[in-house]
Each structure stands twice: as C-alpha cells, then as structure tokens.
C-alpha cells in the first residue's frame, strides 16, 4: 500500500462569492502521477494553487506528509510548480532561469552548473543556456518552465497544463519524457489537463472534476470503463448514453428493449443512465439483432471508421474497422459485459 503524501480534506474556496471548489476531498500517494481533468473553469488551477500555497482555502485542510500546511508559505513547502503561462523570468537567460531555485538554496556553483545542464538535456534544450527566454518558441519556454521546476528535485511537482502549447508530436514525446522523469526521479506529479487522452495515457490516477466538485477518482481504466455518471462518460472518450431503467439485477431496459448486463445493486425499476462506448457495438445481420437501424454517415478516422446509425430517430455512434455504406440497414449487438449502467446523477 502506497504512502499518502498529500491530503486535501473538506476544501472550500470562493472568489467574490462564487464557489470555485466545494467539499473537495482528495488524497495523493507518494510517487503517484495524478491528473486533475475537467473542463475549463472547473477549478483545476485553483486546486493546484491551494496545494502550492498560493491560495488559502476558505475551509478545510491541506496536509503534506501528515502535517497540516495551511499556514506555510509556498517557499516552505517542498513543492515546485510549472505555471500555466510559464512565468519565466524575462530578465534572466535560460540557464539562470533554471538555476534560480538552486541559487536561492545556495547550492554550490559547480553543482548548479552540473544539475542545470543535466536538466536542460532532460528537456532537450541542451545548448540553450545562454539564450534569452523571449527568443524561445512557446514549446521551448514550456520546457524551460518544466526544467526550472524539476531541477530542484521537489517531493511534489505541480504541473498546470504543461504541454498545452506543444504540437502533437512534441507533446507526445514530452508526455513520454515527463512520465519517464516521474518514474526515475521518484517525484509525485499533480498534473492538470483538459485533454482526456493525455490524462488516460499518463496518469496512475485521474480525478475528474466539474464545477468545483470531484465526480470520480480512479485509474484510467476505471474512469474509462466504469464512469460513475453521464458527465464522466461524456468527458472521457466518446459515449452513447441512454436513459434507462434497471429492471432487476443483471437486467436493464433502455430504448424500449431489455438487455442483459453485468451490473447489480440498484433498486428495482430505478432510473439509470446506460453507457455504451462506440467501439463496443458490433454489426450483426438485422434479422438476428435487437437494434436495427440505417447507416446515416460514415467518416474515416485513420484506425477506424466512425459510423452514425439512426435507430428509431436516435443517433448511435459506432467505431469499427468494418465498413458499411450510407443507407445500409444494419443490426447492432453489444456484449452484456460492455453495457455499463450508472446511477442517474444529480450534478452533471
């Protein structure tokens, strides 16, 4: 069992009377890569700032290593931050930007040079030391910001959308590098993104947020396969979501039909939301299918086709490697284990 490093309990935060975080409880384990995922304005940055000590919560406690740190200044916390808009020092060159924290901590000169150069190599900016930060591209600046934070070997690294400005290729490369750094340096990463794919590929644990609340915490597999509610299902990956009723254990009804499923523990006839991922539908001959519809559109997406099928006026999205033509009558089937039933939720 991993050791808990950071605990947020009962955090509340408002700005000008508007609630930004409410009843926020989260525990972060040592050496964990945890991602806060949610739409713009849901309070991700605010949450990071509370952990970093830049914002004081209106209520609740922040504990690091079992010690409550609500009253500690940012410079007294063993945490470094990679800010959403870099916040590099314009009056210093790349080397001095990265060396900043080490100089404050009065690390020996030779050691500073060694560590800064090593870190610049790590973020693929070898030889950029003497450059002025204003002459760097957005992506390079972002990597300087990452270097400036990790060079201090903090216990916890807070990263606020650190890869936002990079193009796809470099982003994927940096995702890999960051993950690698996190593993080798043994730093706990608290990562903010609104890119669900990034969250799924990098995280040990994902925290899905909306409007200042945590909707679900779990491994990438958990939140993808077992979304707790409609919002999470919609936000992470594409989904077909149906309103349905849970007839009894292992039997759910939606779209006017009853389906076997693997979920249980609901009240009889409880209203539920049912999620079926687009890749979980199979085409079967219409004669053998419970669901029959007509292909409405077809888009080639590289690895798969995205096919929209209209069934009784409702659109179903299907990802498949098989192709059909527009206007084809098709039958759809889904394996009971791939039907996911969720409680109707109040917030989303």
């Amino acid at each position: 069992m991993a050791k808990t490093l950071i605990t947020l309990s009962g955090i509340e935060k408002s700005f000008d009377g508007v609630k930004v975080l409410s009843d926020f409880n989260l525990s972060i384990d040592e050496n964990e890569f945890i991602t806060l995922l949610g739409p713009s304005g849901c309070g991700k940055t605010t949450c990071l700032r509370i952990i970093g000590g830049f914002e004081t919560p209106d209520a609740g406690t922040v504990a690091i290593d079992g010690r409550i740190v609500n009253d500690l200044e940012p410079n007294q916390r063993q945490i470094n931050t990679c800010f959403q808009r870099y916040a590099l020092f314009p009056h210093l060159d790349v080397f001095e930007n990265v060396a900043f924290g080490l100089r404050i901590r009065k690390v020996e000169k030779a050691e500073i040079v060694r560590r800064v150069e090593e870190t610049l190599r790590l973020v693929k900016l070898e030889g950029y030391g003497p450059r002025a930060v204003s002459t760097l591209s957005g992506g390079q600046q972002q990597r300087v910001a990452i270097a400036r934070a990790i060079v201090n070997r903090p216990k916890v690294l807070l990263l606020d959308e650190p890869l936002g400005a990079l193009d796809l290729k470099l982003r994927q490369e940096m995702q890999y590098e960051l993950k690698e750094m996190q593993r080798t340096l043994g730093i706990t990463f608290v990562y903010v993104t609104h890119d669900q794919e990034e969250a799924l590929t990098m995280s040990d644990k994902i925290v899905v947020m909306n409007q200042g609340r945590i909707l679900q915490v779990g491994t990438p597999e958990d939140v993808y396969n077992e979304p707790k509610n409609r919002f999470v299902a919609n936000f992470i990956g594409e989904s077909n979501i149906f309103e349905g009723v849970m007839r009894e254990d292992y039997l759910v009804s939606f779209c006017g039909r009853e389906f076997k499923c693997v979920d249980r523990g609901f009240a009889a006839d409880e209203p539920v939301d049912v999620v079926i991922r687009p890749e979980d539908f199979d085409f079967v001959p219409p004669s053998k299918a419970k669901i029959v519809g007509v292909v409405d559109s077809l888009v080639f997406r590289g690895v798969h086709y995205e096919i929209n099928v209209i069934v009784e006026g409702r659109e179903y999205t299907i990802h498949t490697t098989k192709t059909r033509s527009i206007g084809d009558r098709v039958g759809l089937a889904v394996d009971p284990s791939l039907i996911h039933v969720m409680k109707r939720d109040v917030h989303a």
Partner: protein
Amino acid sequence: MTARTRKRLYQTVGACFTAAAFLSVYTPIAVILALSVNDSLKAYAWEGFTLRWYADLFATDVMHDPIMNTLLVAILATLIATVLGTFFAIGIHALDKTRRTRMMVLNNVPVVNPEIVTGISLLIVFSLLGFTLGFHTVLIAHVFFGVPYVVLSVMPRLKKLDPNLYEAALDLGCTRFSAVLRAIVPNVATGILAGALMAFTMSIDDFVITYFTSGSEYMNVSTWLYAAIGRSRSFTPAAYAYNAIIFLFTIAAIIFINSRKEKKEREVRR
C-alpha cells in the same frame, strides 16, 4: 474653395502653429544658451564668445552653495522617492482592482495639485510639527512630490508583467521580500529609471515648493535666483551657464531614454 486649396490652407496653418509652438518653447532656451557664452554682464549686448561663466560656476562662491544644495537635495530625494515609489507601485499593483484604482487616485492628487497649494500645506504641516525649515524640510518635500511620479512610471511596467512571476519566485524558495527584489524589480527597471529621472528633474526644476519649505537661510538655485532678482542685484551670468548645463543634461537624458526604448522595441520586433 477647392478641396485642394483648402487642404493647402490647413497644412499652412498647421505648419505655422507648429513653428509658433516650437519657437515659443525654444526661443528662451536659445537665448539662455547664447547668454551663457556671452562675454558680457549685460543681457542685451553680445560682446564675444566666452566659457568663463562655466568656469565661474565652479570656481567662485557666488553660486556654489545653491548649486550644491540643489544637487544634494535632488540626488537624495530621487534615491528615496525611487525606492519608496517602486515599493508603493508594487504594493498598489498587488491590490484588487477597485482598491488599486482608489490608491491610484490618491497617488495622482499631488501630481495635479497646484504646487502652491502643496507648498503651503507642507509649510503648515512642518510648522505644526515644529520642524525648523531648511535642508531637511526641503528634502522631505521633494521626496513627497517625487514619489507619485515614480509610482506612475513603474505601474504600466508592472501591468505588462506575467502575473505569476512573483509566485514563481516564491515557489522556487524566495521569501516574499526577496521574490519582489529578484523577480519583479529587475523586470520593471526601465520604469524605475524613468521614474527616477522624472523625480530628479522635478526636484532640480522646483521653485514653488522649495520656496515655501526652505525658510530664510537655506537656498537652492531657483530660490537664490529669485532672491537675487528680487533684490535687483544684477546676477552673474553664471546662472545662464547653470541653466544651459541643466538643459543639456535634460536633452541628453531624453535622448538616452528614447534610444533605449527604440532598441527595446527593435528587439521585441525581431
């Protein structure tokens, strides 16, 4: 009138106004420059070129004390006002928007306040406090009117900064104070310098406030000149030389600041 002639007319009138404006500003300066190298005690006759008034300025005692007083007050007041003004500006900038606006209004009142009102108010305050008028009161007065100018020229620089710079410095281990010094001050240095120059010029330039706060013994150049004219004592042309030097310094400072600005802009454009 055709559109073309009308346009001509406007252009001519515009050119005349421009010429008149420049003439009215620069004629007195040109006259002073000329008189400062005029080898005569009379202001109305040209009797040949000389630099002796410039030498006089530093050689004789006539103006030595007022000049030294002016410079000492200007330098000290500039230093103090620059430090105070910079920190005020940073502090005001950190406030929320409504309070920031209020503070800026407070800051701007002394700037637009008529000098005579400022001078008399300071005089009253000093006498209420029982201060003897002299060097110290003049210095305090000059710091007082210098600070708002520093605040005014630092503020726009602060607004342009990345809002997280200060926090980034805290994050990297700085205390609050050293974060201000290491992350903010170097990045608003041009504003600070411009503010300092402004405070310095205002101080060198000032007559009214100094007049009210200096008492009878202590004099700077402007109050000395005023007294000299007042007693209809013919004052030495060294005064012209002094004015000419100040003027040349000012021009040099303006050119220096502008060239820096242009260089910065070129760099940004690149």
